[in-house]
């Protein structure tokens, strides 16, 4: 049986009080509850504070480019469907630079999980507005405050019929751990958008701000009801729902390639007999 120690205990480069610490611990909890061994899991991350997370975990990791974790994860999952593939990155990374991949990933519906540390700011580059920053948010680069309304990833994911859409809050670690567990277990593309206080650059959406507003969706909430989910997804402000907002069981993309059931493509030999048949095609 896997235990939490196997996932390691690293010194981090995060600020004290940063929400990332709690997300890291929820992650470990979830992985252990899932009974996943570190070598069964591949994390793919981008660049940013959030993207450092998997460096503080014992696991396979590809720490790639800002905004590009989803395509890397896609290639990896398509060539080795045995891996549990988890994308871990920030709001800027996933909804800014990499937004096109986010929308494509929803449509593609590969069986991977995407965890977004949503601190509503570009933290590693010292506090510029991100797509999720609220209107009026003042930064050194936006001295007059953000003009555009924030991007609501939950709402758009539901509108696009994403297979699994959840919101967590780093301050609710057990709840978050359960969400991540469900997301990984879910067959299909699953998004967990995690509200994460950034103590250094987001003085608006603080721990207290989130804590006061976040409420856990009750048992009465039916996450398979899309109409209801669309309404829930739009909720933001005084009350912020956390939990599984929406889920469905659309066909997953892995099914497009029946031969993937044979295991990792790295192991599949080159069939020269078949190459030979191909060549005949050009005779």
């Amino acid at each position: 049986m896997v235990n939490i120690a196997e996932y390691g205990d690293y010194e981090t480069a995060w600020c004290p009080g940063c929400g990332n610490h709690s997300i890291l611990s929820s992650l470990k909890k979830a992985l252990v509850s899932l009974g996943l061994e570190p070598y069964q899991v591949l994390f793919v991350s981008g660049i940013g504070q959030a993207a450092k997370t998997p460096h503080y975990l014992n696991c396979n990791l590809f720490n790639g480019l800002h905004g590009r974790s989803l395509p890397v994860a896609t290639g990896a999952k398509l060539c080795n469907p045995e891996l549990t593939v988890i994308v871990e990155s920030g709001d800027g990374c996933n909804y800014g630079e990499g937004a096109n991949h986010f929308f494509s990933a929803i449509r593609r519906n590969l069986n991977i999980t995407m965890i977004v540390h949503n601190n509503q700011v570009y933290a590693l580059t010292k506090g510029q507005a991100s797509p999720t920053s609220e209107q009026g948010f003042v930064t050194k680069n936006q001295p007059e405050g953000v003009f555009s309304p924030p991007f609501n990833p939950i709402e758009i994911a539901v509108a696009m019929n994403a297979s699994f859409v959840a919101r967590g809050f780093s301050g609710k670690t057990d709840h978050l751990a359960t969400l991540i567990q469900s997301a990984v277990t879910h067959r299909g593309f699953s998004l967990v958008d995690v509200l994460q206080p950034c103590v250094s650059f987001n003085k608006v959406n603080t721990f207290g701000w989130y804590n006061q507003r976040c409420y856990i969706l009750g048992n009465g909430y039916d996450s398979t009801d899309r109409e209801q989910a669309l309404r829930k997804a739009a909720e933001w402000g005084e009350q912020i729902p956390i939990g599984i907002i929406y889920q469905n069981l659309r066909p997953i993309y892995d099914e497009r390639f029946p031969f993937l059931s044979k295991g990792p493509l790295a192991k599949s030999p080159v069939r020269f007999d078949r190459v030979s048949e191909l060549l005949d095609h050009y005779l």
Partner: protein
Amino acid sequence: MVNRPEEIMENLSTTVVIAGEAGQGLVTLSQILTKTLVRAGYYIVVTQSYQSRIRGGHNSYALRISNREIVAPTDAIDLLIALDRNSINLHLPELSDHGIVVVDDKVYSEIHPQVIRAPMADLADDKFSNSVALGIVASLLGLEKGMITKTLREFFDKHAHNTSDHNAESLWAGYNWISNDSAKFPRLPPPTLPGGRLTLNGNEAIALGSIAAGMKFFSFYPMTPATSIGTALAEHAAKMEIVVEQAEDEISAINMAVGASFTGAPSMVATSGGGFALMTETVSLAGMTETPVVIVVAQRPGPSTGLPTRTEQGDLEFVLHSGHGEFPRAIFAPGDVEQAFHLTIKAFRIAQKYNTPVFVMTDQFLADSYRSTRPFDLRELAPLNPCADSSIAANPHLTYLVTDSGISPRIFPGMTSHCVKASSSSELVIADSDEHTENGHLTEDLSVRISMVEKRLRKLDGIKSEIIGPEFIGLSEPDTLFVTWGSSRGSVIEAADALVAKGRRFATLNFLQIWPLDPKNFVSILEAAKNVVAVEGNATGQFARLIRRETGFHIKKTILRFDGLPITPEYILDRI
């Protein structure tokens, strides 16, 4: 009228051009003819010229045929099949002195000594006039009726159901009509090649090379002239059990390929200039994370959208320096279809051995140029098994183990040595785009930085030790040496041949590998020549500059072409 240089004439080749509007079925007609000729045992060189539109405009398909080895396209036309009037206007000036034109008499009513007006309406229904034309050409060339019919039937059985009979009958109508008419056109000399030849263009050869090399993952975003690599692969994907994936953009395409490769699946992408530009950030990522990936850059004239359906060799310096920072790479540039196959395989081998991005540079001319290709001996190819090489040199595994060669042994996530399923947490694979320690985690230790930079760059020494040196073809100690690279090879060789036939001392030095270069392989050859001329399909002589940078040897004369058409022997001869 174009005077074909007699030197080229000596090759006794015949150039057939089929020309008309896009959407007139010109490609189908041409491909059937091409395949028949290859099957019959002729050498061919095809040049496709088309516009960035789907219907209308002007396209042409030039098919040079010979029973001796030919490797270049030529300018003069011997037989023009004009599917529209415009084609006559455009190509009449290019007709060789004995050249003729075949055209529907409804399209062209004038009397012209070189124009044969075929009564298409009498010969077949309008829908099948291309098959009539095909029959006429086949007959003029002296191709066996049964042979062309067989290829035509195969084609229509596969692509357009239930029209096979009608097309065959129309073909015969054309064939017989010419036999009745006075066939003023010299028949092809008897073929010399044995059977079993493949009809392949450059892109198909790359696709097949990648499959033979053991590629498992290909991702792309459509872009001319690279798209047809993906099309060929998509056709074979299910059978070969490879993943072919259209991405949302080029950035995604190459990042997917990197992710695939990280799990051990040899991977490739193919694109053209603008799409490649978007990939450059990830080229650098592949260099840093030491993830092998093969990148095909199919060139077309730039800058920017440029002439999207034409050819050029203008991206050499861009590809060579693509990606920020410094890391090793290799660049191959096939000079013909056979080389396209073998160099693609070589590209995979180098990428997989040195864990770094490797390029295959081609261009629209070669991409679309069909050739009669010797069948590949697959037994010669040792299967590339990504699992065989993997061994844990350290426990726990160190992704970036510093070694003398700079090469760190790889394992793949979830697997241990030889792709055995992992079972312990010491078998983790950690890759990082930041500077990293041997174990793959990011570091800001500046002495580790130095050793990692040096480790990565050391791999270039290994790559250098396996360089494919340039081909020297021609007379030793030439008065003039042509230097070229990539798809211009054939024209340079034929131009030199023609000059040698005239009694002049010419030779060619053709580079199939552009990077790295080893001056030892060629500087003495350059120095031995009285005169060195670089021949390139670009406006600034990029390869000549590179030679100077790497060797100090200054090639002062260049023959450059940048109007979107491939260099031909005539183009060179006119400028020598």
